[in-house]
């Protein structure tokens, strides 16, 4: 498979999906007691971890009355129903929020990866005054918790008149120093000879970057993009602060802020949660390998 065709440059992408089949210890029996115990433990933990989501699903297919009467029935006395989903979908809010989440996350990802890659390349390859000093400053900023900046940042957005705008939502999210760090480390490992050849042919820095370096960097760019996208998709605090207009809200913010006019309705709330979870879960089902790799590689960005 792809592992064998990987160049050295692919290497930083951890392929945790390639668990060695040889992990059975040499001399260990294929169905030893230990393996059976391990299997039982895995099954138990997996069940425990799937249970909350399963319970949300179960509730979302009940009538409100059945949901509100409690109990652990899988199907309520009034039977299986999709009423809750119909009610949620007919309100239309969830579509708008999902679309907002989708495209703002995509724009954040595109901008973040683009500006981080350019900066990382400069830090890795280009000689300029203060290179080391600037890089240290960028890296040091990783320690600054974004939560500590919400007050001055919000004040800034008030001044720029960007409260309740998409740009106010997007722009403060595009600075991700860890991404610069990862990409710099990657560019450091790219053999400089590849670029020198192109430069001898008279190509400028920018052209070398786009025609030589970027194509080599696809796997790592894919990995960090996935990570940035997940972060942006799930981000709550900043979008929650900056957006008041319900038509501009992202999915997490809308779900938290806007209620149905009909009050607390358990199966509708669960149906909403299920619908909101669906996009990323579906993508995960199809692209598990890439997502797992992307997250493991980019991992240290924090949660």
């Amino acid at each position, binding site marked *: 498979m792809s592992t064998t065709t990987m160049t050295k440059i692919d290497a930083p992408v951890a392929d945790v999906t390639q668990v060695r089949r040889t992990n059975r210890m040499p001399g260990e029996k294929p169905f030893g007691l230990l393996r059976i115990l391990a299997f039982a433990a895995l099954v138990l933990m997996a069940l425990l971890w799937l249970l909350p989501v399963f319970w949300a699903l179960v509730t979302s297919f009940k009538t409100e009355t059945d949901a509100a009467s409690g109990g652990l029935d899988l199907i309520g006395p009034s039977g299986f129903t999709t009423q809750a989903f119909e009610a949620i979908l007919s309100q239309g809010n969830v579509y708008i929020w999902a679309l907002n989440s989708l*495209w703002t996350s995509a724009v954040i990802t595109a901008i973040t990866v683009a500006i981080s890659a350019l900066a990382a390349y400069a830090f890795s390859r280009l000689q300029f005054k203060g290179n080391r000093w600037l890089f240290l400053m960028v890296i040091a900023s990783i320690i600054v918790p974004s939560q500590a900046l919400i007050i001055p940042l919000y004040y800034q957005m008030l001044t720029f008149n960007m409260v*309740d705008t998409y740009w106010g939502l997007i722009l403060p999210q595009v600075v991700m120093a860890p991404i610069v760090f990862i990409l710099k480390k990657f560019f450091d490992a790219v053999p400089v000879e590849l670029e020198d050849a192109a430069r001898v042919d008279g190509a400028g820095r920018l052209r070398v970057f786009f025609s030589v370096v970027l194509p080599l960097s696809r796997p790592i760019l894919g990995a960090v993009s996935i990570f940035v996208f997940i972060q942006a998709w799930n981000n709550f605090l900043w979008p929650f602060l900056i957006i*008041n207009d319900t038509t501009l809200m992202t999915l997490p913010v809308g779900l938290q802020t806007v209620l149905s006019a009909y*009050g607390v309705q358990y199966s509708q709330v669960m149906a909403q949660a299920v619908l909101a979870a669906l996009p990323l879960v579906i993508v995960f089902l199809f692209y598990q390998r*890439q997502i797992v790799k992307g997250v493991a590689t980019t991992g240290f960005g924090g949660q």
Partner: protein
Amino acid sequence: MTELRVNRRSVLAGGLAAAGLAALSGCSPGQNGAARTLQFWHLLSGGDGIALQGLIDGVNSAHPEFHVRPTVLAWGAPYYTKLSMAGAGGRAPELAVMHSSRVPGYVPGGLLDPWDLNRFRELGVDESTFSEPVWNSSVVDGELYSVALDAHPFIALYNTDICEQAGVLDSDGQLLRPSDPEEFREMCREIAGVTGTHGLSYGFIGDGQQMWRLFYTLYCQHGAEMTFPPGGQVEMGPEAFAAVLEFMHSLADGEIAAQRGTIDVAIAEFAAQRSGIHFTGVWELPAMQDAGVPVGATMIPPLFGGNAVYADSHSFVLPHQSEPDEQARHDTYTVVADLLKSSLTWAAAGHIPAYLPIVEDPAYAELTPQAEYAEAADYLVYDPVAWFTGSGSNFVQQFGQIVGGAVVSGSGYAEAAEGFRSYVNTMLAQPNPADPQGERS
């Protein structure tokens, strides 16, 4: 294999980016067809939400030239936080609902724009169409900042079938009116005997607002005062304070009422006819009628002496806009006047209308069980006035934090009263943070 995957991924990424750009160029708020859109924020869900939606639909169909677009935000602190942030950002909605008790805290910070009384006069709305206390609560510093839609008291709903079986109705089919705490508890036990679960539905766990509503009702029944003079010390009666907490504890015994009842569990329980009495706001009435509960309504009985009914008002405000659209403002006055004049439907939702022509309408007297608690209007008590009090404020949450332990555990009532006193004194010593220097007051 590797190549293929990369390509698929870049196609996906390209698609996302394209969708993003399309959305960026195509989307901007408020482009909603030809009609002018008026953003209207409120915090009313449940039975209220349904009723208000009906009123709004009425206004929208009467005025094709504009479209009121309501947004329901989570009740309480989250709503008020969002509303002030929108006001501070200068892009607030055209119209919003606030509790009257919260308005005094909002005015000094410039978060609200005043109403122009002259425009309202032309639409038949002025001081003569409101009762004096309601009108006074709408005026801050001589300017009209809010227009009340209703007064909504905290009352007792009861299930007439269950209460009949329990023998706690009088000859007119009305709930008996016990006059001391033990008599009331006994009554609830009778009902619990019928339902097999609880006699009373009252949710308060983790909910300062619910605790405050019942607490303040019963506290005021003692005839005790509670005043919050700015910069001074709270005046209150610690004995009455402790007595009410003790009574509240005695209700949450698992028989009279659930030990760990939350507000929505209490609502669900009464709606499912598994209890006989429900301490709640009038706003739950329609939802209970819809649920098929044979429902009566009355003031919470005077268990500690006099009658007192905790209440607040929903009122219309103009959140501050830095560049208000003249046409939209004009439409907003029309909307408010129309809503007031159609508030008989709002009375159907349980509330006591603030607009007097509606209350004086014979149609109002025919509404049942609204007429049963119409007398509550004579005993209304609102939150003590201060910049930090009011429905959904941090104050009521703090109250819940301070007394919650005592109500659940049944001990430490006096300490809770003392804790409350010192909390309020701390707050009284602080300036209104919306206007720390008093520049705008």
